[in-house]
């Protein structure tokens, strides 16, 4: 499991970005990617593969593997590692393949 470096913890003091992950309030460091925020908060997986339904979580952290797809503010299949956290952001784990119509 991942743990923040002390410097990272320190940088958050007084400047934390408040988001929710699966409805739970989470504090992140400014500049964290959604993928980093997920890992720091102990979420190893953020979606299922569409064909076999196997859990997937952030892997490459640089925009190429697409394993970190996640629902952000209601938009499915967003690349968590390429998007920075914003105050009030709503991050939700994706269940199964993304839907086309609600």
């Amino acid at each position, binding site marked *: 499991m991942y743990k923040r470096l002390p410097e990272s913890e320190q940088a958050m003091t007084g400047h934390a970005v408040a988001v929710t992950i699966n409805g739970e309030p989470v504090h992140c460091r400014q500049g964290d990617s959604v993928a980093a925020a997920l890992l720091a908060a102990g979420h190893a997986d953020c979606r299922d593969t*569409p*064909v076999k339904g196997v859990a997937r979580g952030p892997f490459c952290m640089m925009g190429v593997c697409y394993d970190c797809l996640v629902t952000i503010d209601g938009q499915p*299949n967003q690349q968590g590692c390429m998007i920075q956290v914003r105050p009030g952001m709503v991050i939700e784990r994706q269940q199964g*393949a993304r*839907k*086309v*119509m609600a």
Partner: protein
Amino acid sequence: MSETDAGTLPPPRARHHKGIYDAVVIGGGLVGSAIAFGLRQCAEHIAVLDEGDVAFRASRGNFGLVWVQSKGMGMPAYGHWTMSSKELWPKLAERLQEITGLEVGLEQKGGLHPVLTEQEYESRIEFMNKLLSQPGMVQYDWKMLDRKELQDMVPGIGPEVVGATWTNVDGVANPLKMLRALHTAFDQQKLDYLPLHPVSEIDKINEVFELTTPHGIIRAHKVVLASGLSNQKLGEKVGLSIPVRPQRGQIVVLERTDRILHTPFSTLRQMDEGTWLIGDSQEEAGYADGVVGLPVLATLADRAARTIPALRSVRVVRSWSALRVMSKDGFPIYEQSTTYPGAFVATCHSGVTLAAAHALRIAPMVIEGSLPDDMSVFSTRRFHVQEAA
């Protein structure tokens, strides 16, 4: 190619059969692979000679329709041929699954051709009536669905969609799984698939064909040209004049989603695994298969989004172009050379739809050594007649 050049190639796959093959197919795409698979069900020693990854590979770029509606205008025999392949498809898919354990995503639950304007609506009805009223044309039920009927079949159609023609004879397969299943069957049935074996010369010596490749001479009693756009050049070596040209098609691929489109459109389908394909563009663009262009891709995307507006939020993950193999009149060519008997050609632009006819009808004809009279309509003689007239 010199021996020095051949030395830079990876070592060839070991051949199961060292002697003269019963038949050799030149071309390892869907057309060649389907015929080779069929030949192997009738004879023991079969080989497929393929190029490398630089080949044009229409088989890796297609849309995967198993399609009947719209086909055969001007040649009713092609309508029948298409229908016979559609009817044989389940048998081919079943046989492939028995041998390889792979299923190829065959779904024959009907298909739709969308119309987006009133004008398209009228001209589509006129076209279908004209197509099916040709003398001797194969008959099947079709219907122009209005918006309401279409809504019952396809969720979320857009306000601009006027309707769609529907038949129960159309369907889809997964072309990549199909090609994989055929090639897996080759290994299981000890058919020699020989990649990096482009053929430069074809000779016939003492009733045996000798095919010159960078890995030496391959011998066979019969040879089938199924090399797509290369057929033109290879045909000349066995006395066949095969007029084919590339017609470029571009495809847009959307990310995988939950499955909502169970009845395919001719221009928009959802794969068995959730990916969306948008296609059916047609361009005369020479051999430029490494190029995609915004004007065509934008038009494809626009029509798809007007058909099912919710697709506007679904991400594009890939696009590509590939070259259809078009004959002069767009219909397939099947013929045995009169000057080099035992040399056959098979070429078409619907390698998926016609795969079953190629495996289960053409292949036995090749082994038999003759194409029946009712196949003569597909010979290149039809082009000569037109020129004389």
